[in-house]
């Protein structure tokens, strides 16, 4: 069995699989690892709970995309519902629906990990050749400023007017038509997601990618994973068919992503009192402004993110921020814009004239920050509890004020905050009114599209789930975790390239170690 296989097609006598390497999850971490290990001659099986959907399925409709390509149909939130979490699901994971923004891991973040978490094997010089290899494979390149859409250009112009740093981003696209629908799956395969790059590379070297196969539990015996117990998922992509699958591999790589990876380990009996498993989950908590401009913005068309500002990344002892943009198609606009009834409708009718700019808090760097905690709900599903500390709320308030000033400097007539009821800001002097607004769950809309941590790497088993270097579990010897869950903090940049780079580095090391 090789290639892309739907688990529903497995015959009953083919539901016990014995690959050398089982990789659980097919996103940024799993796909890169699969490709490199398969290329090194290892027998690789990638199992993926979600569906295998391709460009022919990507019809640029939000309802279809959320139903099939997002965790929990796009309804994932923190337990208090204070933070909406957009996270991908399906073959290729979040790389299929992200907005293609690529940054290498900032060197100061790597230094922080080294100094505070004992991560000594991912120095900039260690990662550089791996980042370079990934960037070449994924056609990562800077988007020229003149190719930015109006929404991004307004962020740039506003920053320029205020003397704030802002610059074009790099994107993993090839022959991009800038339609603006990255978040719904690229309909022309311009986005160089795992779906069309590293996963086909792995398959070309003999790997199998088994979709609709949800791993529910790892059976751990004597410090080793003996097998993975999975279920076949049915036509709706979520309901088990009853067909159980057992995978008895020599080695296991867990790449289910932050939230799902710690969730699987918790369901498998790991963790417990005082364990770091599930802890230190970070989200880049995000707030935004919608600003109304006299001219047409059409923030739903064009490359979704092509400008970023890191002018506020270093705020001294306070939590840092970075600023980007968001595409607003009708459903995403409807949930992001404040209010209900006639008031909401009045803003929706201005959709073509609205820009959408966001401020992302760089969480995880405060001395007393603990981040979110993943736990298992009675249903067996993973959930995340993340009460934001005052440090993060302060940053979001500062970010909101800065965004409002940027929007006004870019020519906005009205800037609306994500509060409900909203505050309408029409001149710079109004920005001070943000100081009087409440910042608390349910008072202002908070989102996240960057989920990190929960299986953190580090040298101290009391504080970390996996060891640095090869990301092997501290106590389970044939289990490695290779995805965004290993990050000890957030990043201050979009996370996809960090995960690619870590996976490329670790897979190279594993292939060498296993060969020897």
């Amino acid at each position, binding site marked *: 069995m090789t290639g892309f296989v739907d688990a529903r097609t497995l015959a009953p006598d083919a539901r016990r699989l014995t690959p050398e390497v089982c990789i659980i999850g097919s996103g940024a971490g799993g796909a890169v690892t699969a490709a490199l290990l398969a290329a090194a001659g290892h027998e690789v099986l990638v199992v993926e709970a979600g569906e295998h959907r391709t460009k022919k399925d990507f*019809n*640029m*409709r*939000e*309802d279809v995309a*959320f*139903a099939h390509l997002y965790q*929990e*149909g*796009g*309804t*994932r*939130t923190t337990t*208090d*519902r*204070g933070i*909406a979490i957009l996270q991908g699901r399906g073959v290729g994971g979040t790389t299929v629906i992200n907005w293609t923004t690529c940054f290498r891991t900032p060197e100061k973040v790597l230094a922080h990990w080294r100094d505070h978490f004992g991560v000594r094997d991912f120095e900039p010089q260690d990662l550089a050749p791996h980042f370079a290899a990934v960037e070449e494979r994924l056609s990562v390149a800077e988007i020229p400023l003149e190719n930015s859409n109006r929404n991004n250009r307004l962020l740039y112009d506003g920053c320029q007017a205020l003397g704030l740093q802002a610059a074009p981003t790099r994107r993993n696209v090839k*022959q991009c*038509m800038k*339609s603006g*629908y990255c978040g719904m799956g690229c*309909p*022309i*395969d*311009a986005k160089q997601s795992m779906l069309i790059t590293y996963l086909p590379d792995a398959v070309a070297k003999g790997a199998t990618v088994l979709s609709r196969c949800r791993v529910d539990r790892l059976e751990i015996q004597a410090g080793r994973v003996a097998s993975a117990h999975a279920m076949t998922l049915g036509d709706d992509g*979520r309901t088990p068919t009853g067909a159980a699958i057992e995978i008895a591999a020599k080695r296991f790589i867990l790449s289910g992503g932050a939230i799902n990876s710690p969730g699987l380990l918790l369901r498998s009996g790991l963790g417990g009192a005082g364990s770091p498993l599930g802890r230190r989950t970070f989200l880049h908590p995000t707030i935004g402004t919608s600003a109304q401009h006299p001219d047409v913005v059409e923030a*739903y*068309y064009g490359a979704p993110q092509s400008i970023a500002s890191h002018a506020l990344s270093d705020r001294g002892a306070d939590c840092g921020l970075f600023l980007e943009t968001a595409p607003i*198609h*009708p*459903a*995403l*606009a*409807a*949930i992001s814009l404040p209010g*209900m*009834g*006639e008031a*909401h*409708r009045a803003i*929706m*009718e*201005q*959709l*073509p004239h609205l820009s959408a700019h966001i401020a992302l808090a760089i969480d995880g760097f405060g001395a007393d920050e603990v981040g979110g905690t993943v736990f298992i*709900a*009675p*249903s067996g*599903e993973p*959930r995340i509890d993340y009460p934001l500390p005052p440090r993060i709320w302060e940053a979001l308030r500062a970010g909101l004020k800065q965004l409002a000033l940027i929007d006004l400097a870019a020519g906005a007539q009205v800037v609306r905050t994500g509060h*409900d009821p909203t505050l309408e800001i029409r001149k710079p002097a109004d920005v001070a009114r943000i100081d009087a607004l409440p910042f*608390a*769950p*349910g*008072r202002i*809309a908070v989102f996240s599209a960057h989920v990190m941590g929960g299986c953190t790497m580090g040298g101290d088993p009391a504080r970390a789930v996996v060891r640095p270097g090869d990301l092997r579990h501290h106590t389970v010897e044939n289990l490695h975790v290779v995805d965004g869950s290993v990050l000890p903090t957030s990043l201050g940049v979009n996370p996809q390239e960090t995960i690619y780079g870590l996976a490329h580095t670790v897979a190279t090391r594993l292939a060498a170690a296993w060969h020897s």
Partner: protein
Amino acid sequence: VGLGLWPSRVRYTPRRALLVLDAANFNVLATAALRAVRAPGVDPIEIAHAVDTVLARGIPEAQDDFRRLLQLLENGLAGLLLDGRPRPFTWLGPEGQDAALYKFRDSAIAARRAGYHSLRRLCLSAYYVGDSTWQGIGYPGPPQISVPT
């Protein structure tokens, strides 16, 4: 206690089988949808069905939370104790329903605020995801594209 047993005013019944909600929840949801979404051609029954479909993709705990939210919104005793309004949500006039929803929005209890936003977001996204709504907000829809050769 009797206020908690005050029966709903049934205005909306499902057109097809429900996935997560029951008929009572559905009626409350459709009633609320008509207040959350004020736009041309709103069909609260279809919005409620769409929300039911979205909820089915979520986890059981989130489904339970949403059912409890609708029960709390409708319950007269809870309305009296928390907001000073003894009548079930479905018996209120439009202004009373808006006021009841805003009481949730402005509540000191975070769970009630979160409930308001869940209700609001699910109804609004269910409506605006439909292509028949796009012209009214000036959204031209996805572009016609062809694959580069």
